[in-house]
């Protein structure tokens, strides 16, 4: 618990650093309103832009405003916290849809991505852990070759299955104004592909861990005590068998996030990955930077959680602050 609090506290400077990097990237964005080399617009537009993006302020003030750490002095109200900023979860307007804020568009995408992510994660865990246990035990060994082949090919065939599977649903639902049903169907397929691939990786790791654990002396001791084989498996051998998954959680998370980014685009689901690609295709710099920032924060959170869980299951782990 103390460790968790320490890590949270130490994450604050890191988040500020990320925000600063994002701000620097935004200022360096070519062709945007912040580009110092662009051809100046008519004066009314320039004024509107300056007012909208606070371009006439000194750069340190803009930086603090972007982070959401700006307090301004008003004669009547005293010090007033600025309305926009990362801390207020409002990184400012989008370039392409000036009427809407980045945060509103992000919120929609986050909902889709979160739903997809939970589905994928549940599938990966739900298939991967029993699969790994099955593979490690003698009756399940024949599954090995077909299992690993299926998991490997899932990613390669993603581009075949994706559009072909998606297309009939789109055609069927063409007459319907509501796309919700089709989103659900496509989401299920998308989560299925990434989930299957991740489940393959997890199953291999669990299999390795469980095989090693089943040969360890403490399992011999447990068997010698005369408890049932199921109790040996789940009560003694399973916990150390999960550790390889947790120690590789960083690459597993990266794989899950990459996979979701790809399937969202292949199945045209309006999630974060689609938003990212669309804002890169026709550059919407504020949107792009903030989506990347969101990805960075998400990876920090996910890896932090996995690390805490790892420490919970294996107290021998050394401290890693970050």
């Amino acid at each position, binding site marked *: 618990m103390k460790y968790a609090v320490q890590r949270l506290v130490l994450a604050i400077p890191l988040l500020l650093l990320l925000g600063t990097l994002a701000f620097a*990237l935004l200022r*360096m*964005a*070519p*062709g945007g309103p912040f580009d110092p080399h662009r051809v100046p617009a008519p004066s009314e537009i320039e004024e509107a832009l300056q007012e909208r993006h606070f371009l006439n302020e000194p750069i340190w003030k803009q930086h603090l405003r972007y982070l959401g750490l700006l307090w301004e002095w008003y004669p009547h109200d005293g010090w007033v916290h600025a309305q926009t900023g990362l801390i207020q979860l409002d990184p400012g307007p989008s370039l392409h849809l000036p009427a809407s804020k980045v945060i509103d568009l992000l919120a929609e995408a986050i909902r889709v991505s979160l739903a997809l992510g939970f589905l994928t994660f549940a599938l990966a865990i739900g298939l991967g852990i029993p699969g790994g246990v099955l593979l490690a035990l003698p009756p399940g060994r024949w599954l*090995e*070759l077909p299992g690993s082949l299926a998991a*490997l*090919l899932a*990613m*390669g*065939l*993603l*581009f*075949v299955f994706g*559009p*072909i599977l998606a*297309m*009939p649903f789109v*055609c069927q639902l063409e007459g319907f104004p509501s796309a919700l049903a089709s989103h659900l169907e496509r989401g299920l397929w998308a989560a299925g592909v990434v989930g299957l691939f991740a489940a393959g990786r997890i199953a291999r790791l669990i299999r390795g861990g469980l095989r*090693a654990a089943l040969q360890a002396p403490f399992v011999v001791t447990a068997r010698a005590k005369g408890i049932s084989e199921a109790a040996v498996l789940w009560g003694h051998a399973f916990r150390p068998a999960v550790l390889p998954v947790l120690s590789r959680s*960083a*690459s597993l*998370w*990266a794989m899950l*996030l*990459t996979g979701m*980014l*790809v399937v969202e*685009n*292949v199945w045209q689901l309006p999630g974060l990955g689609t938003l*990212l*690609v669309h804002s*890169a*295709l026709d*550059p919407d*710099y504020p949107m*792009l*930077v903030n*989506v*990347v920032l969101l*990805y*960075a924060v998400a*990876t*920090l959170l996910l*890896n932090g959680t996995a690390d805490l869980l790892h420490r919970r299951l294996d107290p021998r782990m050394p401290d890693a602050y*970050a």
Partner: protein
Amino acid sequence: MPMPDRGPIDPFMQPDRRFQPYGSGTSRQSDARPGLGIRWLVTLSTVFAFGVVLLLAWPWFSHPTVARGLPIAWTWSPVAPSETPNRAPNATHWFGTDAQGRDLLSRVIHGSRLSVLVGALAAAIGLMIGVAWGTVAGWVGGRWDALLMRIADWLGWLPAIVLVLLLITWIQPPIRSGLPESAAVGTGFQAHLLLLIAGLGAVSWMPIARVVRDQIRFLRRSGPVEAAVVLGFSPFWTFRRHMAPHLGRWVLALLLGTIPAVVFYETFLSSVGLGVQTPLTSLGSLLAEGIAGPDLNRAGGWMLLFPAATLAVILFTFHQLSSEFRKACRNQRG
């Protein structure tokens, strides 16, 4: 060179298990599985088939003109349109033709050649960065090691595609505007390709750095290196003489392992329109055509099926190769 050349000193020439924790050597043998023979067979035959297709196709497809008189399918040009658009696979066009009547087989061969080339070059760039980064971190050690590896870890946590998108979007416009107007029209796609390769290389070094750093730290404690350090040889000489030879096989395994990842990223980027640009063809842009073009009720499923199956074969082949190499590396080490 301050020392007479006596050939490389190899502390691992003998099956030496001194540096390994107890028992790690024996578990390898018990890990031998009955499926291994089949997997090797599959791997080798795919590599062989793949290599044969690429090599055979090389002289003919280097030219945009059709090699006439040869009654086999791969004498078709990947760029020359024919009078038979949207044909399903048949005896003349083994993979069918696209909307302009171009032979899909030749386009797939061309595309996969570019995809593998991009993958190999980007992986080589990533390898250079990763080896340098990991070597410095592993050699210097201490606080700098912690810092360098922390940076590599954090960057590695982010999906590589996100970083590539960020890099390309930010760097491309200044490069475009930096080119002279006439050059920008003709060579825009080439500049973009180079940028793509550089970007993919710049985001694929993190796992390499981690492995190399662990290897360097491991070698740093070995007898010859300690002796060289004590005798006052420069770090560069020690690295070249006592560490680089051992890194070699790891580097090959890592290169082979990075290529499929990069090929996959490139395919994805090209399939959404951010990768390889129009005059060039990669597997990703073929997939994009396959996704966008065909009306499945009428025709065109092959436009999707063949590039995707080729991609699956390429990914599978490189994945298998690298995992076999990795296994060989581990077994050799102890």
